[in-house]
């Protein structure tokens, strides 16, 4: 029943008049009340189809979630094994911090036993999974006074915020740039925008971040805050902290979006139904925005999902350049220190996030393109 409103075009038309993505359902396009998307023209959906859509979607979701379980399980096994087989022992590193000292085998075994790492690998894995199921992500080898869950709760929001801000910024840059270069193809405007886009794609985001910081320091004697401040604590300081990384990350992805939309749009604009729409006398803006763009967006939405997953995993270099204590920075520090517990837990979280994001992307697909049925 969740999806029932979207099956009723008149209700959708009144609730979401401003959203071009869904305007294919808008009855105003065709005088007889029908509407079209792509090469399909659908009449008003009969009520008994609503229940059918619901059960199909529900089954699809269930299937995807079931499939996600072995995916996540596979990731946990891979990361667990990988941490144990790579050379070097983090316990030796911890004990040896600040002094050149080599643990004897007896000392190492004693430390392992105290942490439970003398048990067989399968037992260690099952204990870890059992703890995760209870919501206990454990403690870092290096900082045993704070749990990993606390770290994720504290740092996760800032990483998520930066990821989302950068994605929105990327769309703000990429979408108009892609449309402009598609519509005014091979004009000086197209060449200029494409050159800029290529430049933005080529520049590494961490370099851009460092350059931004350098400019602000040298010209305005200002640097973004380096202490974690949440949006609710101080929105202004939070914005100062997050806008820099968001720009550094967003412009690069925005350039990719622009290129992708341009090439998708060029393909779609050659389709027969677009020619038909022009022939019908629809305004160019209507054709581009309500028909062509909608189909051109599909690959970009997929890419956005992948991008969001990747940035949640940590824009490590950017976080380090801006000294933002996010999850990316935590992960790289954990890798350097071979902090197994942190690495395992964070990788598990990122895997789950990826699965959820991809599922959401697939569902969004279904709304954008009604040809896609589950």
């Amino acid at each position: 029943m969740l999806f029932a409103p979207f099956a009723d075009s008149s209700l959708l038309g009144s609730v979401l008049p401003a959203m071009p993505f869904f305007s294919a359902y808008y009855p105003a396009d065709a005088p007889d009340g029908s509407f079209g998307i792509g090469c399909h023209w659908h009449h008003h959906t009969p009520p008994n189809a609503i229940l059918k859509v619901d059960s199909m979607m529900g089954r699809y979701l269930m299937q995807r979630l079931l499939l996600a379980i072995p995916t996540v399980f596979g990731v946990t096994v891979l990361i667990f094994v990988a941490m144990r087989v790579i050379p070097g022992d983090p316990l030796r590193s911890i004990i040896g911090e600040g002094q050149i000292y080599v643990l004897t085998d007896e000392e190492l075994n004693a430390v392992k036993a105290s942490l439970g790492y003398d048990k067989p690998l399968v037992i260690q894995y099952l204990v870890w999974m059992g703890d995760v199921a209870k919501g206990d992500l454990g403690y870092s080898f290096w900082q045993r006074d704070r749990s990993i869950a606390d770290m994720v709760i504290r740092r996760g929001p800032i990483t998520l915020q930066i990821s989302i801000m950068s994605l929105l910024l990327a769309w703000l840059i990429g979408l108009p740039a892609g449309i402009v270069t598609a519509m005014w193809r091979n004009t000086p405007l197209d060449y200029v925008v494409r050159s800029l886009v290529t430049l933005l794609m080529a520049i590494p985001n961490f370099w851009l971040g460092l350059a931004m910081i350098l400019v602000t320091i040298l010209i305005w004697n200002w640097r973004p805050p380096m202490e974690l401040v949440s949006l609710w604590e101080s929105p202004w300081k939070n914005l100062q902290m997050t806008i820099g990384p968001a720009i550094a990350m967003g412009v690069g992805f925005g350039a990719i979006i622009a290129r992708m939309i341009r090439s998708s749009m060029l393909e779609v604009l050659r389709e027969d139904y677009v020619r038909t729409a022009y022939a019908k006398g629809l305004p160019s803006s209507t054709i581009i925005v309500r028909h062509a763009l909608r189909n051109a967006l599909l690959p970009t939405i997929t890419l956005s999902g992948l991008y969001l997953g990747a940035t949640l995993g940590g824009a490590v270099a950017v976080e380090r350049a801006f000294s933002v204590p996010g999850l990316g920075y935590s992960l790289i520090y954990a890798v350097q220190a071979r902090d197994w517990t942190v690495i395992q837990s964070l990788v598990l979280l990122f895997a789950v996030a990826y699965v959820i994001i991809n599922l959401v992307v697939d569902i969004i697909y279904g709304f954008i393109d009604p040809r896609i049925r589950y």
Partner: protein
Amino acid sequence: MESVRLMILKLVPLMALIVALVLVACSSAPAAPQVIEKEVIKEVIKEVVKEVPVEVPVDRVVEKVVIREVLIQPKATPEPIKMDLSKVGWLMKASESNIKRGGVVRTAGPVEMAHWDLHQGAPAYTGITNIYNNLTYRNVGDGQRDIVPDLATSWEVSNDGLAYIFTLREGVKWHDGVEFTALDVLGTFNRILDPPEGVITGSIRQSFEPIEEVRLLDTYKIAFDLKRPTPWFINVLGAAPHFGYPVIYPKHFLDANDQNVRENLSPGTGAFVFKERIPGEYIELEANIDYWNPDLPYVDGIKAIHIPVWANRGAAVLTGIVDFTWNGNQETWNLAMAQPDKFHGSNPPVNGTAPLWTNNSRAPFDDVRVRRAINLGLDKKFDLEVASAIALPQYKARWITRAVPGHMTDEEILTLPGWREDEAGRKADIAEAKRLMAEAGYPDGFHIKAVGNNTPAGGEVRGVAWLQQAEDILGITSDLEIIERGLEGEILVGGEWDVAFLTGTGSDVADPTAQWNGIFRCGADGNYYKYCNPEFDILLDNLLVEFDAAERVKLLRQAMDMLDENPPGYMVNGQSGLPMGGIHVKGLRLEDLGGYPWGRYETVWLDY
């Protein structure tokens, strides 16, 4: 139903792969630790002093006679340095007069730490040293110059320099309210010198190696009996190194925690009390209102913010995010020093030099001629430039730092073989280096295994540059393995390397003797070079007990000559730090630091 079957069929191969992976992993992992017994045969080396007639040119005979005289006849009755009696009961304070109180001082630095135990290598630069006191300390208010009383109000030293008696402050309380007594000092040093199982005090124990025994005299008096008179003993008690910081811990806390302070933060007696730590973000301390020095601290608290990148620390100072840092980078430091109305700072020398490690236990570096060849032939100026560009500022150092009386100036050093920068000098040095290599049986060079840690100052940049010039100039080819810093100990002890670009060993005090005793003496624990020069050991024995400043300078010069003749590794540089702060930061003499300070800063005040 059909779709469920299909789904299961799709899942089976995936599950099989995962099970296979698990089996592979489990098969390679032992179920339980194995106990391996092995016989260890120890060799005991006895020192025998012999006189051997040698035919040498006349001028060299004179030189050798002088050296041997000093070596074979050490001073029998050294006069230890007595305490300046005007400093008895002295209380630390800032050197300025118009001190303002209040505010929270914000610092930038690396604040990550694996554990809390300063004796077991917890880094001092995190700021937690402000929670504690030592027996003696450097005078923070005068830029870390003089050694002054801390928890000890005074000390006496016996005429033979073998016994130090410390009178301790009364009325001092630990932050948990328990009273401080001599038992705490006894407990601290017994733990350092003879740690129980599971407590590792390797590097700090090296600094206190001269201690024979610590004796309790009464509630506020304690005695240290030394194996030999040690000129820098008082200094090392007040040392402020990166690691192995000799704070005093409370006996009651040590006893309650099995002598291990790693997991739980110990209370201190210091000017600040621990407030909060967010790992990877900051450590916050607040003023100890019951501090035994009634005048301190001047500020209400400290917030040490975790900023691992040096440039960011400097930038944080430039933009006012923090008040000061002990360690900016060269560019930001220069920018700050260009604005003397807003910032101040200095670049004091870091204690201890860091010779490149060479493995002298195996060919080719077991041959002194090869070691001399690399010290002569390689371009030290280039090496300095590379090191300075990627790490702290480096300067020429002929085995000792600029902080040591007797160090040579740059002008003096540049006249020496191996250091000359003029074309003719370089040609002559390279020619001599090649001659030595040929004499040692390597006329066309040789191949080595190099290891370097994963830092630019280690293997990633400096190591690569060094190996490249070694190949270009002397035909020394190499395979370089990059390792993580945490594995350095394993690698060094394992001995399967020829040169190592690793973290240098520092020194707790400016005087290099303690460091040399730990890394250059035959068979010393920290002697990963496997260097052994019995003549140098004898000179070291003399240095360890020589109190007279002028005689120490002579001995240090002889040591430098010996190390040039028979080098333990490749030596080129000392380092200096780049402390910097806003002009409003007072009480530390930031603009004129006498020593490189990683430690306390309780005399700081903010002049807003």
